[in-house]
C-alpha cells in the first residue's frame, strides 16, 4: 500500500466535507493515509479558538474533538521523534538555502510555509510516496536545480490541489 500524507488543509477538507468519492479520499483502500501530530495540532488550534461557531456549527468543543478522534481511526499517525523531524527539516532548509535565496523568497511569500515543510519532512520519515497539499508554492521544489539537490528517501510526488476546491488536482510535482 502506498503511503499518502495529508497536509492540514486537505485533512480538514476531508474531515469537514466527508468527500469520500474523491480519488485521494482517506477511505480509498489503495492508500495508507498518514497525518502527523503537527497536522492535528494545527487543526485543534483553529477549532480551540472557538471560531467554528461562526461556521454554522452549533456544537461543543468536546463533541468536535471526539468526532476528530474517531475520524483519525482512518489514518496512521506519523510516529516520529521530534529530534528526527528536526534533523530532516533542517536538512531540507539547508539544501533549499544552498540553491535558492531562501530569505528573500520567504519574505515575498514564494516559499512553502515552514509548517508545510515540516509536514513534508514528517511524510518522508514515515516513507510516504505521495504528499498532498493545497500550497501552490511547492512547485518550486520541482525545478531542476532544486530537484537535483533534494535527497528524499521516499516522497516521489507532491500533488497540489486547488485550495478553494480540493476536489480539483492542479499539478503533480515530481521531486525525484
Amino acid at each position, binding site marked *: *500500500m502506498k503511503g499518502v500524507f495529508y497536509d*492540514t*488543509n486537505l485533512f*480538514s*477538507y476531508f474531515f*469537514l*466535507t*466527508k468527500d*469520500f468519492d474523491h480519488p485521494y479520499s482517506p*477511505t480509498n*483502500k489503495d492508500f*495508507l*493515509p498518514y497525518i502527523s501530530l503537527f497536522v492535528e495540532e*494545527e487543526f485543534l*488550534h*483553529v477549532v480551540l*479558538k472557538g*471560531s*467554528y461557531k*461562526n*461556521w*454554522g*456549527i452549533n456544537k461543543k468543543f*468536546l463533541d468536535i*474533538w*471526539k*468526532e476528530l*478522534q*474517531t*475520524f483519525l*481511526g*482512518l*489514518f*496512521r*499517525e506519523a*510516529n516520529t521523534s521530534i529530534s528526527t523531524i528536526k534533523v530532516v527539516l533542517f536538512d531540507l532548509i539547508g539544501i533549499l538555502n544552498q540553491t535558492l535565496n531562501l530569505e528573500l523568497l520567504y519574505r515575498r511569500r514564494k516559499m512553502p*510555509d515552514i*509548517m508545510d515543510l515540516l509536514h513534508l519532512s514528517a511524510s518522508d520519515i514515515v516513507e510516504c510516496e505521495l504528499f498532498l497539499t*493545497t500550497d501552490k508554492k511547492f512547485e518550486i521544489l520541482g525545478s531542476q536545480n532544486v530537484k537535483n539537490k533534494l535527497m528524499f528517501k521516499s516522497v516521489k510526488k507532491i500533488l497540489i490541489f486547488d*485550495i*478553494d*476546491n*480540493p476536489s480539483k488536482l492542479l499539478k503533480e510535482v515530481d521531486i525525484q
Partner: protein
Amino acid sequence: MIPESFMAMGTSVSFNKTTRNFIKFPSEIRKKFDVYLKTRVKDRARKFSYINEAYTNSKNILLNFDNFSDKIFKQIFKPKIKKREIKKIVKNIQNNLKEVSEEYKELDIWLTTIHESFLSEPINPIVYFLAKKHYILAKIAINSVKKLSEDDILKIVKSISEKSLKENSEWLIVGVFIGLEPIFVSSLIIAGGRRDYDFISSYNNLINRYLPLVSRNFIEDFLKETEISKNIYGIDAYHKFVSELQVDRHERCLL
C-alpha cells in the same frame, strides 16, 4: 484469513487460566472509582491487589508486545491439529465468543458513563479516546466472526497450516491485540489515574499500528460503527477553516 485471526479473541480466554479472571475485569474496574468508599476493608484490600496484579501484568505485556503476541499465537494456532481436537476447539471458540460479546455490552455502557463524566473526573481524555478506539476495533472483529457459522469455523480451523500462519502473522497479532481488549482497557484507565505515561504512550503506539489496518480492510463496517459520514459540515466550513489557518500562520510569523 482475517476473520480467522479475529478468532484469537475467542481463544485468548483459554491461553492462560488466570486470563479467565481478567476477562471479567471491566465491571471490577468500573467499581474501582468508588471502591474506596463503598466496600469493606477486607474486600477492598483483596480487590486492590487483584486490580494491581492485572495492571502490572498488562503493562509487561504491553511493553513487550511483539514477543508476547508471537508466543501467544503460536499457542493458539497450532498447525496440524488432530481431528479429535478440532471439534473441541470450535466449541471453545463459540462459547468464548458468547462470553466476550456479553462483556462488550457491559463495556458499552461503561464507556458512555466515562464519556459523560470524564472532564469532571481526573481522567486523561486520551485514555478515553484510546479505550473507545480499541472498543470499536473489538466490535468490528466480533461482528465479523459472529457472521460465521459452525461449518465455516470448522473449515477455517482445518485449513490452518504453517504457511498460512507465516503469511498472515500480522493479522494474527491484530487478533491477539483485540482479544486482550478487556484487560488492556481496564489497565489503561488505571494508568490514566496514575499518570503512567509510559503505559499510555505504548498503548497509543499499538492502536496507531492496528486501527488503520482494520479500518482499511473493514471500511464499510468502520464508517457504520463510528457514524463518521453523518457529520458533514460542508465546503463553506472548509473555506472558513482555511482562511483562519492562514491568518493564524501569519500571526505566528509576526511573533
